[in-house]
C-alpha cells in the first residue's frame, strides 16, 4: 500500500514540476514580449532595422510562400474534382478552393513556411549573437537589445505575414484556376464567376487576422529562443530546433482556437 502512495507521490510530483515549468515559460515569454514592445514604442526608433526586417520577411519570403500556395491550390482542385465529380458537384470546386485557401490553407501554409524560413534564421542569428557576447556588446554600447533586435522582428512579422497570406490566397486560387481550366477543361468564365460569387470579405479578413497572430508568434518564439540560448554552437542548434517546433505547434494550436473564435 505504502509503495503505491510513494509511486503516486512521485507521479504527482512530476506532473507538478512539468506544470510549474510550463507556467514559468509562459510567464517568461510574456515578460519578454512586454519588454520588447515597451522598448520598441519608446523613442529613439530604429527605422533601418525595421526596414531590413520588412525586406527579409515581406520580400525574400515571397518565392517560397508563393510556390507552396500555387501547388497546394493545384493539388486541391484535382483532389476536389476526384470526389465532387461522383456527385456531379464540380461547380462547387471554385468555391471550395476559394474558402479553403482564404480561411485555412493560406494563413497556415504561409505561417508554417515563414516559421521554417525566418523563425529558424532569427533564432540562429540572435542565438549566435548571444553566445559570442554581441548582445552584451550592444548593452555596453548603450543600445537596448530588445529595441534593436527583437522589436523590429516582432513588428514586421505581425504586419507582413498577413500580407504574405494575401499573396498566398491569390496564388493558391490562381493555381486552382490553372488546373481547373487548362487540365480539367472547366469554362474559364464560369470558374471565375463561381470563385467571385463565393468570395466573402470576412473569409479573407479572418485569414489575415490569423496571419497577424501567427506572424507575432513566429517572430516572438524565434527571438525568445535565440535570446535565451546558451552553450555554444550546440545550444544555438537546439534553440533553433525548439523555435521551429514550438512555432509550428503554436500555429496549428492557435489555428484551431482562432477558427472557433472567428467562425
Amino acid at each position, binding site marked *: 500500500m505504502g509503495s503505491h502512495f510513494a509511486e503516486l507521490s512521485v507521479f504527482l510530483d512530476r506532473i507538478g514540476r512539468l506544470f510549474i515549468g510550463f507556467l514559468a515559460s509562459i510567464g517568461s515569454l510574456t515578460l519578454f514580449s512586454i519588454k520588447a514592445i515597451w522598448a520598441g514604442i519608446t523613442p529613439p526608433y530604429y527605422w533601418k532595422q525595421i526596414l531590413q526586417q520588412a525586406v527579409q520577411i515581406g520580400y525574400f519570403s515571397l518565392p517560397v510562400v508563393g510556390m507552396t500556395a500555387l501547388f497546394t491550390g493545384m493539388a486541391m482542385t484535382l483532389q476536389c474534382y476526384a470526389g465532387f465529380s461522383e456527385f456531379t458537384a464540380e461547380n462547387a470546386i471554385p468555391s471550395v478552393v476559394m474558402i479553403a485557401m482564404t480561411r485555412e490553407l493560406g494563413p497556415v501554409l504561409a505561417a508554417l513556411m515563414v516559421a521554417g524560413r525566418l523563425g529558424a534564421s532569427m533564432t540562429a542569428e540572435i542565438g549566435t*549573437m548571444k553566445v559570442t*557576447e*554581441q548582445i*552584451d556588446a550592444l*548593452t555596453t554600447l*548603450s*543600445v537596448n537589445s530588445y529595441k534593436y533586435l527583437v522589436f523590429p522582428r516582432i513588428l514586421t512579422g505581425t504586419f507582413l505575414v498577413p500580407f504574405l497570406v494575401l499573396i498566398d490566397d491569390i496564388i493558391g486560387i490562381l493555381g486552382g484556376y490553372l488546373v481547373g481550366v487548362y487540365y480539367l477543361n472547366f469554362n474559364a468564365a464560369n470558374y471565375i464567376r463561381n470563385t467571385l460569387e463565393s468570395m466573402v470579405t470576412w473569409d479573407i479578413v479572418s485569414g489575415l487576422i490569423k496571419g497577424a497572430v501567427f506572424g507575432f508568434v513566429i517572430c516572438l518564439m524565434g527571438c525568445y529562443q535565440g535570446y535565451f540560448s546558451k552553450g555554444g554552437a550546440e545550444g544555438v542548434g537546439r534553440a533553433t530546433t525548439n523555435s521551429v517546433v514550438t512555432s509550428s505547434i503554436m500555429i496549428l494550436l492557435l489555428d484551431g482556437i482562432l477558427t472557433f473564435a472567428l467562425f
Partner: protein
Amino acid sequence: MEYVIEVENLSKSFGSKEVLQGISMKIGRGESYVVIGGSGSGKSVLVKCILGLIEPTSGVIKINGQDVAKLSQKELFKTRLKCGVLYQGGALFDSLNVIENVSFGLIYGLQVPQKEAYKIALEKLEAVDLDETVAKLYPSELSGGMSKRVALARAIATDPDIIFFDEPTTGLDPITSGIINDLIVRCTKEMGISAVSITHDINSLKHISDRVGLLFKGKIIWEGTNKELLATDNPYVVQFINGNAEGPFTTQG
C-alpha cells in the same frame, strides 16, 4: 586619489553557488588594474557585475562616484557610454562592416550623425594602427589580431573613462599579443583612460598592469602593484606566476 570604480562588499550567487564573496576594490583615474585568477574564480562575473550585465546579490558598485544600482535606465545608459569593453572574442557585429562597428556606439548610443560618426571612427581606427582600407571589410574577413584592434577602436570610439579588457591577448600569437599590449598601455598612459583587465597571460600582465588583484574562490586574496607582484612570496601568487602544478591553488581548489 580620485576613483573611477569603487566596489564595496560585492557578492553574487547563482542558486546555492557563491561565485563572488564580499569583494571590495578601488580603481583610480588613469590606473590599469588587472584581475588574475584561475578558470572559474569569478573574474568574468566580477566584470559583468561592474558593467551591470549581471545583477549582484549584494554590495555597492560606484562608477565615477555614482551608485549604479540607484541610477535610472537612462542614466545607466549614459554611464555605460563612459565604459568601453573589449570582449574576449571581439564581439564585433557580424552583420556590420568595420566602420559601422566602430561608429555603432556613436550613432546609436550618442546619436551622433552618421557622417561625423564615420569621421571619428576613422580617427579611432588610426589610433589602433589601422587605416581606411579595412573600413568596408566584414568581421569574418579579419584576422584575430585585426579583429581585436577593431574591437579596441570600437571600445574607445565614445571616448570612455574606463575600458574593460576581457582576456585581450588570448588566442593571439606572441607578436600580435605584444602589439595589443602596447595599444592597451597607449590607451591608459596617453589617453588617460582607466583600465580593468582580466588575463591569464603573465607577459601581458607584466606589461599592462599598474596594480593587480588575485581572485580565488570568489575573493581577492592578494592585491599589490606590478613590482610587488614579482617580489612577493605569497604562495598563491608564486604558483600562479610560475604556472606550477603544485601549490595552494591545486591543494585547495
